[in-house]
């Protein structure tokens, strides 16, 4: 670092927590008396601005808020808010009429009664759908029992490899109120097509719910909360009809994500609000269609992730009647791979709801086998410990001996792939937004990199024997984007423009990928890899 850079980055020395440049700046100060004096002047100025007193809230302040929030009349607030919004809308409408009248008299009388948003404009249609789904979301959480039935259609595919690799994720709830991630494998062979039904009853007042995944009215998996206990019933080895009952932990609350995972707005938000701007997907309006149930819809197309060998795109079908999402159809290599049909939200009176999973029958062994249906429970676990990593892993696994000073949070996520994919672990280290987030990915399937070794360049062998390889810049940035996006839940940040990915070969012969959100200096990268220690025996 030279003096010019030191002056430029001087605020880094006064950030609340040490940033990646601070070490270099200190080293420069030790060698440069002039910059050291500049720092001292700044330090004195900051000291003059630092109050000698610090204000903290009262000791019982949090308790007061939490107590009041528990007694808070949420419904009243929402109603007040809605009623204010209605008044606000009326006022805006009145103001708009006056403004329009003025404008019309001057310019174009024909524009007076034009609608505000044009559903034929894809961007405006997205806004209309977002508004409609937000209204639907309010209905889901309003008083009464919500009933949702999402239908997952597994269409006939000619590509056998793609056809047998299809699956549907779903969530259930643990006794402590945490989500459990599961999946139903739907390995329909070419020429076969069927529908898996995902049904939810949810009482927003008591938190009771029933969730049923079924095929032709036979249960693949069901779980419920009856107000005191969690019950579950699922396909098992001996196909015995066993309802497992576990008392809910004290303070158990039904997670909102259980309901949201089935509501169309979650799909919509993830595709249009969060990912599209990061991945640069193209959205086009492609026309209108009548669905099999006679519902007229507008269709928009969302391109898949670019630079992926498999060509994918999604068609979103939006009801013309109320702008809600009716269907989401995924195309892989030009073929329809899966269709998800979203319902209109229904309210039930509460009769004949199987809160105790009574009267449900499990799918037969033959029906499940013929249709390639199988159940995998607990396939994603976040925040797992090093010991859990070792017990879940099928290869020797590595962990960081200590977290870097800038690390705010460290979390390892376990993912259970299907078939030959095996298990994988993503260890994410979160820095401040835009900072040097790190993601270490380990999986048995990474052994494929040993065959691609010639494409990588060995840049260093660390003291622990781990070899660091770089790859071409475009490939590195592409992979880094995927790794960082996949760890968004921990990092809470978009991939940075200077992100990089490296391949690591361990002395045990396994391969990992190491991704950084910023470009590290060689010394920083080597120091980071030096921190990796083997966890397995």
């Amino acid at each position, binding site marked *: 670092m030279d003096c010019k850079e030191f002056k430029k980055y001087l605020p880094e020395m006064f950030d*609340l927590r040490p940033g990646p440049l601070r070490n270099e700046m*200190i*080293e420069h100060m030790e060698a440069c008396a002039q910059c050291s004096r500049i720092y001292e002047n700044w330090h004195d100025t*900051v000291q*003059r*601005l*630092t109050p000698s007193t610090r204000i903290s809230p009262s000791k019982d302040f949090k308790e007061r808020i939490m107590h009041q929030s528990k007694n*808070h009349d949420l419904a009243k607030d929402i109603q007040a808010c809605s009623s204010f919004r209605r008044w606000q809308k009326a006022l805006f409408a009145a103001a708009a009429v006056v403004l329009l009248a003025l404008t019309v008299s001057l310019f174009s009388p024909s524009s007076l009664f034009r609608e505000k948003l044009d559903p034929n404009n894809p961007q405006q249609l997205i806004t209309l759908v977002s508004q409609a789904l937000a209204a639907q979301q309010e209905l889901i959480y309003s008083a009464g029992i919500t009933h949702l039935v999402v239908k997952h259609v597994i269409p006939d595919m000619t590509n056998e490899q793609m056809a047998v690799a299809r699956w549907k994720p779903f969530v259930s709830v643990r006794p402590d109120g945490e989500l459990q991630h599961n999946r139903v494998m739907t390995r329909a062979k070419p020429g076969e097509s069927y529908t898996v039904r995902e049904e939810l009853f949810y009482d927003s007042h008591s938190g009771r719910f029933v969730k049923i995944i079924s095929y032709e009215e036979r249960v693949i998996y069901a779980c419920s909360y009856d107000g005191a206990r969690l019950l579950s019933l699922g396909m098992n080895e001996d196909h015995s009809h066993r309802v497992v009952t576990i008392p809910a932990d004290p303070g158990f609350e039904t997670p909102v994500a259980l309901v949201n995972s089935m509501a169309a707005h979650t799909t919509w938000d993830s595709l249009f609000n969060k990912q599209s701007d990061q991945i640069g997907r193209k959205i086009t309006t492609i026309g209108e269609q009548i669905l099999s149930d006679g519902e007229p819809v507008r269709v928009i197309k969302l391109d898949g992730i670019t630079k992926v060998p498999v060509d994918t795109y999604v068609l979103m079908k939006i009801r013309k009647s109320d702008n809600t999402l009716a269907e989401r159809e995924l195309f892989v290599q030009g073929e329809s791979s899966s269709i998800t049909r979203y319902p209109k939200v229904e309210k039930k009176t509460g009769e004949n709801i199987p809160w105790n999973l009574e009267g449900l029958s499990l799918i037969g062994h033959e029906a499940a086998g013929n249709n390639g249906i199988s159940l995998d429970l607990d396939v994603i676990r976040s925040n797992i410990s090093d010991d859990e990593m070792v017990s879940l892993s099928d290869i020797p696994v590595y962990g960081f001996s200590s977290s870097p000073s800038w690390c705010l949070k460290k979390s390892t996520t376990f993912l259970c792939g299907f078939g030959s994919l095996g298990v994988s672990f993503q260890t994410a280290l979160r820095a401040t937004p835009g900072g040097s987030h790190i993601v270490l990915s380990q999986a048995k399937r990474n052994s494929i990199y040993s065959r691609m070794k010639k494409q990588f360049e060995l840049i260093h062998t660390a003291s622990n024997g781990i070899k660091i390889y770089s790859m071409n810049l475009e490939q590195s940035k592409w992979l880094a984007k995927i790794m960082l996006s996949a760890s968004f839940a921990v990092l809470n940040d978009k991939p940075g423009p200077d992100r990089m990915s490296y391949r690591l070969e361990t002395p045990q012969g396994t391969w990992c990928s190491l991704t950084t959100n910023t470009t590290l200096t060689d010394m920083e990268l080597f120091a980071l890899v030096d921190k990796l220690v083997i966890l397995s025996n």
Partner: protein
Amino acid sequence: MVENKLRAAVSVKPVPVISGSREDWPECWPVTPAEYEQLVDCMMQPLVRYAFRRLLSIHEAEDVVQDVLLKAFALGARRGGKPGVVSYLYKMAANACTDLYRREKMKSDKLSQGGSFRVIEGSGKTEHEAFAELERIEKLLVDLPGKQAEVIRLRIIDELSFSQISRILKVKQATVKSRFHYGIERLRKFISAQQEVE
């Protein structure tokens, strides 16, 4: 390691403020009660400091922040899971402080009070001394452009990091650092000139 090096370097003074608010502010509006409690945990202290700077009364600051956090609870039902909670809370707190300040013309009233207040850290300090200290600092900041002064207040008085400030003000971190840079540089020159005159 960095701090050890700092200590080792004789000519380098230690970085003035290391303690401060928790860095792990939530990104999104709370959905579950646990997330709401986490939001309260993270935000109550920085918001109270922020409100105190504007109102010069810890009681009023706590009242404002309590209202803001309860509104956040109510809004969570509508906005749950959506991003932008931190900047929204600061905006609500700023608006609530402005309303209260205008309504009660608090500043002049409060300066005439001199009661002690137990939650202020620093031995023997009273609430009166706390806002006298703020007034002293405000006099130094008075000639700075408003945006530079606000970044300095948030960083030094409210003890927030540059990344947290960038989230509150909805500007890039580089912009925050640049405002801090120009602000401190300007003040440094002003203080040096003043010392020369003296």
